[in-house]
């Protein structure tokens, strides 16, 4: 968690540290009882959660149907690959574009909403997209899924890399993650991002200052949906298939939970921390017991009760305490957001 001085920088020390640690993951992940695919999944969900947090954390817009954009990205990746061009960049662009278009469509209906109505309308749209993905099986394969999606080679013009292996895919997704982190960081710390934050604090006040709140919210929805679509495209590649289930309400709820658990409301890195903790906990507990939901749910309840600011919030608190050495820290909610 770096200080505010680094906010303007393109790349912060925290980012470098995170990338470096993540880059070594394939070397030791097996020795701690995990496996490369979970690493791939963590990075993909991290991209998704960062994109989601542009709405929840930065703009204060709770979207409960975000799985729709993720799922649309996944289908678009497969469909572009099958029908347009079997090129990784084209397929990923297709996933982002489809996510953005869906975001635009939904945004036109909900960008002038706030709070609970915003949340509930996103649920409705999520359900509509889910229903379409199940119903329209000539295109999506319905509940059987859109199968045989290929992990396309990374073609850089001069060289081409094969990423069919999980470890190679991991590095490709890590590169995508790094790009998304930089873009999101710049976005959040740009004048545009500050206006989104202002909207989160008070829509009325921001409007009185002369900003077109509706346009800002709509654009945030579109950007968030586009990156969620990108994550979905990567997920389709990891899973080699796309299914409707990532679009359902429970799965859409997961990204909200991960973001909040990690501390997305108080920290840029919160969503990433949440994803890491959430997916590893689920995998480890799930391997030990088929009744994993009980332990997982209990953990969840305890976390909300005793660390409602999330893990990043708790960590921040510790740092503050250490810095203050005895003087009581201020309430977290009044702190500025930082990385």
């Amino acid at each position, binding site marked *: 968690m770096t200080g505010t001085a680094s906010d303007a920088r393109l790349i912060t020390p925290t980012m470098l540290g995170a990338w470096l640690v993540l880059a070594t993951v394939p070397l030791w992940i*097996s020795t701690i009882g995990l496996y490369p695919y979970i690493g791939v999944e963590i990075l993909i969900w991290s991209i998704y959660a960062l994109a989601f947090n542009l709405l929840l954390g930065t703009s204060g817009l709770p979207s409960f149907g975000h799985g729709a954009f993720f799922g649309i990205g996944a289908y678009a990746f497969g469909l572009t690959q099958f029908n347009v061009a079997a090129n990784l960049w084209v397929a990923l662009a297709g996933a982002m574009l489809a996510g953005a278009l869906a975001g635009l469509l939904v945004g036109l209906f909900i960008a002038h909403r706030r709070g609970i109505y915003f949340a509930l309308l996103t649920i409705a749209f999520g359900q509509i997209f889910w229903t379409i993905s199940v119903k329209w099986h000539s295109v999506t394969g319905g*509940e059987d899924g859109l*199968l045989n999606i290929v992990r396309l080679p990374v073609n850089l013009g001069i060289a081409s890399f094969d990423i069919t292996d999980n470890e190679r895919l991991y590095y490709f997704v890590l590169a995508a993650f790094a790009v998304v982190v930089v873009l999101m960081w710049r976005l959040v710390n740009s004048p545009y991002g500050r206006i989104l934050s202002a909207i989160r604090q008070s829509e009325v006040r921001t409007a009185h200052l002369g900003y077109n709140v509706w346009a800002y919210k709509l654009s945030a929805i579109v950007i968030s949906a586009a990156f969620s679509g990108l994550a979905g495209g990567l997920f389709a590649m990891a899973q080699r298939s796309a*299914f409707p289930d990532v679009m359902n309400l429970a799965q859409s709820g997961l990204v909200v939970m991960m973001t909040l658990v990690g501390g997305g409301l108080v920290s840029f890195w919160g969503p990433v921390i949440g994803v890491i903790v959430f997916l590893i906990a689920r995998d480890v507990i799930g*391997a030990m017991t*088929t009744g994993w939901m009980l332990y997982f749910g209990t953990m969840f309840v305890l976390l909300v009760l005793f660390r409602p600011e999330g893990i990043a919030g708790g960590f921040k608190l510790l740092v503050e305490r250490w810095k203050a050495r005895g003087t009581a820290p201020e309430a977290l909610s009044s702190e500025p957001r930082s990385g």
Partner: protein
Amino acid sequence: MKKHGKPALGVPRRTILKGSLMTASLAGVGAFYGPWHHNRAFAQGKKPIKLGLTNDSSGQFGNSGQDEHRAIRMVIDEWNAKGGVLGRKIEWVTADTESSPAAGTRVAERFITREDCPILIGALHSGVANAITQVANKYGTIFLNTNSSAPSEAGENCSRIKFVWDGNGTNFSKAAVANAVKTIGKNWLLLTNDYVWGHSTAAATKALIEANGGKIIDNLLVPQNTRDFTSYLLKIQQIKPQVIGTAIAGDDNKALREQITQLKLDRPGGPAWINNQQDWPDVWGSPQSLFGVFGTSWYHKLNLPGVPEFVKKWQDANKDGPIPVPGNVSYNGYMATQELFRAIERAGSTNNIAIIKALEGHKMSAKDRMQHFDAYIDPDTHQVQQTIYLARKNEKPVDNTDHFEILSWTEPKDVMDDAAPTKCKLVPHDKVPSVDA
């Protein structure tokens, strides 16, 4: 042997195995019969064969997933008790596939790359089965699809490494429809779940109805997750068909059954109902709501040699289980696992290609499978072609588990899905990555 992320220290493996056992007994899903309770007549120094059991324990198929899980574990215990397979002990790991494809992919990746499982067993939902197949294809891991009855599993979504053990929607339609058109009536209405399984089953039914001189007067598509069927049931009464062919699955079907029996729409004078397969774990919760004619691949009171002994054996192994007798889901799990072990012994190897070849085209006697006719594993589609039974609610049960009255049994050749071989394209054996255990 193909290795994937082999755990160098290999520490927590045992913990995982024990953990799953512990909870299984905690959760009351059956008595604990760990492999090491039996005599250890395993060949010295040979490493165990570790199976990945991809069974749902939560979500829509959690109940059936655990039912097949119990039967698979039973086979493993039996074989371990008599010295394992090829003298090697069989171990297993399991994790909840949550009735969700995303979880299916993750669990399959975990079992193959982390636990080094050469074989995966278990599936109910076609999406989960396909998600697992996509992973298994990549590594060449054999996957036994025990209970997903979508026709597409042995059609367009077939795979060289996947074997399909259940009868599918087309098989059941073929067993029921021709006869029903002739004996009951020509005016049919279809009540179809609006997703792939429903549509493909309805298409098979429609073709058969029309081929036999009947006609479809309406096809009501029912969205997935429908809990309230009254508007459809009222509509049916207004349209007045002679026969209704349903392809409704899962929780939707359970709700439909309740509502039809409450209305007594299944009584004489009303329309006749031709249903698809009714899974035993679903029936057990509400046997009183069975209606019409339906299919099954096995029943625990079939009047065949070996059936009572099998039921007894199953009951001894599952004393505190939630369901007192085995049904089709448990049966498929048992038969799949048993045939797998036999195939390994026949192949004399745990090489995946050798096992696949030992399974392909393999004939299984009626006696051995406790069905009326011989069955075989179709080499072109990897589906087990087997006897299909039609049944209805039993009005004269001999005990409190006797819910089916078996009406007929049809030979595999008469219920075969003729379209499947044209849709299924298996990759050549030498294109499958080699796996050994």
